[in-house]
């Protein structure tokens, strides 16, 4: 069993594990929101949270692993570009759905149900 002092030492030496845990929790919060929200725009926000958690992982790996260049951060930047285009198209879709159906509640958009 670890003593309190050892645990304190482990917790206060910020390393890769801290960032992995943090991003896992952030991803889980986004997932929880994705499963429980009804509005279209809150759903988009939760997707953004999850994408952000993934970016944190990429940047943390690039900082803490023995690498020789910035490939990890570059991947994070590409991921940011993809997320930005995703949110632009998502917002346009939400606006279109609102204009055609008068609602952004995903439970009311069930006309393709058999």
């Amino acid at each position, binding site marked *: 069993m670890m003593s309190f002092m050892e645990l304190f030492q482990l917790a*206060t*030496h*910020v*390393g890769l*594990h801290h*960032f992995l845990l*943090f991003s*896992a*929790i*952030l*991803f*889980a*919060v*986004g*997932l*929880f*929101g994705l*499963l*429980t*929200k*009804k*509005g279209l*725009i*809150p759903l988009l*926000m*939760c997707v*953004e*949270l999850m994408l*952000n958690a993934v*970016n*944190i992982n990429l*940047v943390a790996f*690039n*900082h*803490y*692993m023995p*690498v*020789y*260049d*910035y*490939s990890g*951060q*570059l991947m994070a*930047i590409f991921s*940011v*570009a*993809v*997320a*930005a*285009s*995703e*949110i*632009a*198209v998502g*917002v*346009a879709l*939400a*606006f*279109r759905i*609102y204009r055609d159906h008068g609602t952004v509640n995903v439970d009311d958009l069930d006309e393709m149900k058999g």
Partner: protein
Amino acid sequence: MDALLGQVHALVAWAFSLANDYDVPSLIEAGVFFLFAGLALLFACGVIFFRNVVHSALSLTATFICVACLYLSIGADFMGAVQILVYGGAVAVLIVMAIMLTRRDNMAHSNPSRGLFRHAAAAVLTGLFLSGMAAVAILSPFKSAPQSLGDAAPGLADLMLSHYVLPFEVAAVLLLIAMIGAIVLAKGAEER
């Protein structure tokens, strides 16, 4: 007076001995990490639990800025700037614009959630997922060896225009397509 001075001396000596026992720079690093990570998680929960969707959007922006501060704390300065510009700026503005375009009469309850059963199921699923991820994150034998690779922006530019030039161009085309798609979707194509 002498007694007070003696007290101060003892206090200073105690602080120095504490500073010798603990690695102060790493303690400061840990403080910064826990401060911004905790704030980010708090604001992320705010995104879900605020009743008003405008408050959720504000909370989301705060989460993005806390994550940018975390990037800065591990020396990813360019990434932090990108995070603030793209997420804290563009994405936040887009989401607020979408909220205003799809406005309802009563903004106080504009962020509805599902019922209790759905919440419980989501909590169980998320808990399972989180425990799996946490087990992987904690038990993985990564050795943290912080790197110093020099300035981020020149290094990124070199990579972007040499080895990763194809993904760079594809990302540019993707952004163009997304822009055109968003305009066509929002404005409506001419139907014959």
